[in-house]
């Protein structure tokens, strides 16, 4: 399905990352947005609240992030494509109902404009330290999808992609941007609506008496129905069978949780996206995501000028993690250099996937600013020694 021209602000714009996310969401057909003000994410809902009356849809400012996330799950069950937006402290509050969204297999998109933490941390300054929280911050076992843009232009496209993935796999999809990208203003080209491909949620064609709401298809994803369609379904956060009824035993738990995890893991090759460059003869590969992937480029350029063979693996989708690719590269390089604005999160995954074949060198940053490219350059030099 193509995007609705009435929802797409075709043209060249000078937008910050937050506003580009708003335009991405509207273009993606998002019709329900619940949010609570929090720096540095608020601009996303501010723009949406300005645009939504003439675009079509509902924006509601909820009483807190617990409520925003709960409302998002509820709205999704009516067929709306729902969105909420937040940053660190709000993200923590959302964890409860992110778990519900995973358990009820509810398509939804959450944008986290990361800031420095822990706790209130640095409300107006950047961070990338929620990368592990996004993966497993709610209790229990589950898998999600997370993308990480490094420019306002990417904020636009990745928000659309997040909606498509959420709808496709019936899972919360996260746009893990950050304060730097969110508050950075650059040129954003919004194409014609017919250049934007949208995934249409799969609804069952079975009659109510034959339909089982949590019976998966071959891709492990069940077909959905909407509240009000006459199917009288039951959906519960309790462990449930294919009918959606609670069953308190390990056999049903095993079947359900395994599928929740497998529907992402087994489809990972279709979900994963990365940008790979000059890895063929690389001695060292800079593996990064979000703003750090951009700040790393000057460092890479400098190292190359000195004759160091530096490859690039830039994660577009961070979760699920491209472990096959990392393993493959690990066999032929000396080290991965991993700059991230935290004290070691994705680098742990790199280390795990590399299985000791090569080093994984973290270039950490506590948050509040992006890396000085010089620090990444030094790490590259050190890594090839």
């Amino acid at each position, binding site marked *: 399905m193509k995007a609705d021209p009435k929802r797409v602000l075709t043209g060249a714009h*000078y937008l910050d990352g937050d506003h580009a996310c708003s335009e991405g969401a509207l273009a993606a057909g998002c019709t329900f947005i619940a949010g609570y003000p929090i720096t540095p994410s608020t601009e996303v809902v501010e723009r949406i609240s300005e645009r939504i009356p003439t675009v079509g849809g509902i924006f509601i400012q909820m009483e807190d992030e617990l409520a925003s996330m709960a409302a998002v799950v509820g709205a999704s069950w009516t067929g709306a494509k729902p969105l909420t937006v937040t940053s660190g402290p709000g993200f923590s509050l959302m964890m409860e109902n992110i778990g519900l969204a995973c358990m009820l297999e509810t398509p939804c998109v959450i944008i986290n404009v990361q800031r420095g933490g822990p706790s209130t941390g640095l409300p107006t300054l950047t961070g990338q330290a929620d990368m592990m929280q996004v993966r497993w911050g709610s209790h229990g076992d589950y898998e999600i999808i997370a993308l990480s843009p490094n420019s306002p232009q990417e904020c636009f496209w990745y928000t659309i992609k997040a909606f498509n993935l959420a709808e496709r796999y019936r899972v919360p999809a996260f746009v893990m941007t950050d304060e730097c990208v969110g508050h*950075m203003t*650059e*040129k954003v080209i919004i194409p014609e609506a017919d250049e934007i491909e949208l995934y249409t949620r799969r609804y069952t064609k079975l009659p109510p008496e034959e339909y089982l709401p949590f019976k998966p298809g071959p891709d492990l994803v069940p077909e959905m129905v909407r509240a009000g369609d006459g199917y009288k379904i039951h959906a519960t956060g309790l462990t449930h069978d294919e009918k959606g009824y609670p069953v308190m035993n390990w056999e049903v738990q095993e079947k359900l949780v395994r599928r929740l995890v497998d529907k992402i893991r087994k489809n990972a090759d279709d979900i994963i996206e990365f940008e790979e460059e000059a890895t063929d003869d690389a001695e060292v590969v800079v593996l990064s995501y979000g*703003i750090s992937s951009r700040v790393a480029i000057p460092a890479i350029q400098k190292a190359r000028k000195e004759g160091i063979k530096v490859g690039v693996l830039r994660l577009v989708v961070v979760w699920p993690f491209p472990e096959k690719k990392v393993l493959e590269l690990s066999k032929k390089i000396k080290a991965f250099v991993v700059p991230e604005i935290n004290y070691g999160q994705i680098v742990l995954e790199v280390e795990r996937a590399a299985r000791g074949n090569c080093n994984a060198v973290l270039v950490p940053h506590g948050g509040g600013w992006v890396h000085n490219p010089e620090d990444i350059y030094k790490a590259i030099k050190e890594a090839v020694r």
Partner: protein
Amino acid sequence: MIEIRISGFGGQGIIRCGLIIGKAASLYDGKSATLTQSFGPEARGSACSAQVVIDEERVLYPYITVPNILVAMSQEAYSKFSSNLKEGGTLLIDTDLVKLDQKKDKVKLYAIPATRIAEEMGNKIIANIVMLGFFTAVTKIISKDAARDSISGSVPERFVELNIKAFDRGYEYGENLLGENA
């Protein structure tokens, strides 16, 4: 690559000024321009600054490091940021709002009573646009047409005319100044 810092206090339209410059460069002059901003938790009165990096190629590192150009519209902003200005760089100030240090800065200095001009025009809120016109004339980093187009797309329609007028006043002031210096 050119790094620009526009600074003043909250409420002066500093960020807007940076936005118009960045937009002019990237949408109308065909360059790449990244705008970032910094501000304190106060909504008004604190030092506030907008940073624009303009390049022919894609801007990679989004922040300025050692700016080539500093626009200072308050004493606090001048004190805070002037020492960071590149040697031989350009300093633009509002004559009435910034008193220069005794020490000779190794910079090219251009001064305009932007706020006074704006007040004469009936609204000091457009001082930032007067400064923008001055900036455009003096630095030539963005073209006059691009700046005017950018203003038209960045302020509410009913204020476009006033803002263009303010821009032209500042621009004219800059051209005259350059003429005198020439």
